[in-house]
């Protein structure tokens, strides 16, 4: 079964708007006029280095802490406790009672979100089955492996079939198999029209998963949009070239071209950065003159590179 039923009873699609949020902890500024909007129906990544304010923003969305100023809106109205109950939240690290049984815990969370006991129990069973930990449902959380604890955690965020799923660093500490499983669930939720937002400090790990990103640094938004659009809009143009030269000259041929800079060079080729006026095909011609071209392609910048450009760090 799927964890998400289709359809949204005709309401306009949910958009979560974070509007000029600011938060200080004493002298330290955690958020500075952070503004971003998260549409439903796609997986959105809230990315940024450690300490950039991702967790603070999520905690404010869930009312765990208050912002100093600014507002969070959902479907155009300020977010309140009733709306939050229809959200699913998975905080970083843990978030379950260590000595409570997995099944009991899911039922408890589901009932807190407004479900009756019978429905809650049925959902918990189905979800544990789906996540592959049905056989551990009567065990205390602390007796589960780390991976299974993470699954139980995810189940707790999903058990009330939330309209919006907000996951704080869901991939940290997961093995590749678990990352794939979690990604699948996130994508499924988005396809069902839910709002899916997750945070990560590992920009490149999540590059393939999210359709859109909001990248923040030091409490402010530095870049937002669909990943494809952001990459296409980047002035950064890089080429991937591998040439077998007869004279053992290596990368000497590329040094001669004006407006071309060698970013890296290794056994499997090199990466060249091109100034805007340089024509990629001219570089290809130069490469063919130097030897046998075994690989050539235009490389889109990675999210990390886009981030570095945006915050102007080398």
């Amino acid at each position, binding site marked *: 079964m799927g964890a998400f039923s289709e359809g949204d009873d005709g309401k306009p699609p949910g958009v979560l708007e974070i509007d000029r949020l600011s938060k200080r902890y004493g002298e330290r500024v955690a958020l500075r006029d952070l503004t971003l909007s998260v549409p439903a129906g796609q997986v959105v990544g809230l990315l940024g280095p450690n300490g950039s304010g991702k967790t603070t923003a999520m905690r404010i969305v869930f009312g*765990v802490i208050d912002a*100093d100023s600014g507002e969070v809106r959902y479907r155009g109205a300020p977010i309140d406790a009733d709306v939050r*109950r229809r959200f699913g939240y*998975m905080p970083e690290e843990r978030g379950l*009672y260590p000595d409570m049984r997995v099944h009991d815990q899911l039922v408890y969370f589901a*009932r*807190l979100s*407004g479900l009756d006991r019978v429905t809650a129990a049925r959902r918990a069973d189905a979800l544990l089955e789906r996540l592959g930990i049905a056989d551990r449902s009567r065990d205390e959380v602390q007796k589960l492996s780390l991976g299974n604890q993470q699954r139980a955690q995810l189940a707790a*965020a999903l058990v009330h079939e939330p309209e919006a799923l907000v996951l704080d660093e869901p991939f940290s500490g997961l093995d590749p198999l678990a990352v794939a499983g979690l990604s699948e669930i996130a994508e499924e939720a988005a396809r069902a029209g839910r709002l899916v937002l997750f945070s990560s400090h590992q920009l490149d790990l999540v590059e393939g998963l999210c359709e859109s990103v909001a990248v923040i640094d030091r409490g402010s938004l530095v870049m937002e949009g669909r990943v494809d659009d952001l990459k296409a809009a980047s002035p950064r143009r890089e080429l991937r070239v591998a040439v077998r030269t007869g004279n053992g000259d290596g990368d000497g041929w590329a040094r001669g071209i004006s407006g071309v800079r060698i970013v890296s060079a290794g056994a499997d080729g090199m990466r060249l950065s091109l100034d805007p006026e340089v024509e990629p095909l001219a570089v290809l011609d130069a490469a063919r003159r130097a030897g046998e071209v075994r690989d050539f392609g235009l490389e889109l910048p990675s999210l990390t590179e886009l981030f570095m450009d945006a915050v102007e760090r080398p």
Partner: protein
Amino acid sequence: MSGRRSGAGLVAEREIREYARSRSFRITTIILLIASVAAVTLPAVFGGDGSDTTDVAVAGGPPGLTDAIAAAGTGVGLELRARGIGSPGAAEAAVADESVDAAVVVSGESAARVVVRSELPDDLGAAISQGLSLARVRAALGGAGVTPARVDELTSPPAVDVSVIDPDRSPPSGDTGIGVLVAVVLYVALLLAGTMVASGVAEEKTSRVSEVLLASLRPIDLLVGKVAGIGLMSLAQLLVAAAPALIAALAIGAVDLPDATASALGWGLVWFVAGYALYAAAYGALGALVGRQQEVGQVTAPLAMLLLAGYLAGAYAASEPDATLAATLSFLPPLSPLVMPARIAAGAVGPGEIVLALALTLASAAAILALGARIYRAGIVQTGARISLRTALRGASPRGA
């Protein structure tokens, strides 16, 4: 959303379920149960024949000596049975085999010896010597030709009228021992329950469950639910521990319960609820300040000290229930829950005073709950290192415009 159980109700329900399931809670309850039954039955089992009657064997002496000793015993408040015994040897043997508590061996008109196993209680000693004198006086009077009827008349105590000048100074009708006992039980119960609240809050904070919970619950609901759930379980634990003890005591008649006992226990329960309402929110608030679970004891130490002070004041008030200091302390909210029940048990308090002290305690409980919820709210989200009360209060201050 109607028909849905309130957030605080669900939180309380979870606490009750999880405590009922927890091994340590069950074990604590069983230990309390055993201890309470033992406290009542063991003295009955090992305390000799289980009755308060003192038996005295009398060897020799004038006729009527046994009656005289028994009468003198009644005079000093002993339930004393005296009987004649054949010889000094038999008397000593009776003491040795514990069939009597003491033996009186009269060897001449003015020579007598008392035989006991280890020591002679003052009241028994007084009764015996008074009985001996009385027997001698009666014998002398009889020898002087006074009629037996006149002898009885002369040696019976005259009727005495008692006039009370200051009725308020009359000795309390209750019992000091029960007062101290109530203070001890309340002290232990409040300390245990308060610590349970603080540990529970600290567990939710350090495991970050609080973050998930606060997404769907107000902090005050979380705090109130936890306090109510643990409170009900603690009350149930108290009742489970106390009820069998009372039943056992009544069934085997092991203890002569003073008349004040039932009301002292009833008031004890009322004051447990009031005291718990006062202390639990404070414990919950301080529990939210910890950085690690192990810091709970340290963070809540001030409250433990306050409870200890209350217990000491309660023990004092049980013995001096009318002293101005005891009366004053019994109205001071943090001490009230431990001092007032001790004074009630000692029988020194009128209903008006009880109601006033209860009202003061409950009003402070409401204030502490409001303040506690603010501290709790600030503390529960600041994970990492332990935070100070001052930081929590500052962090919790209402937002500026």
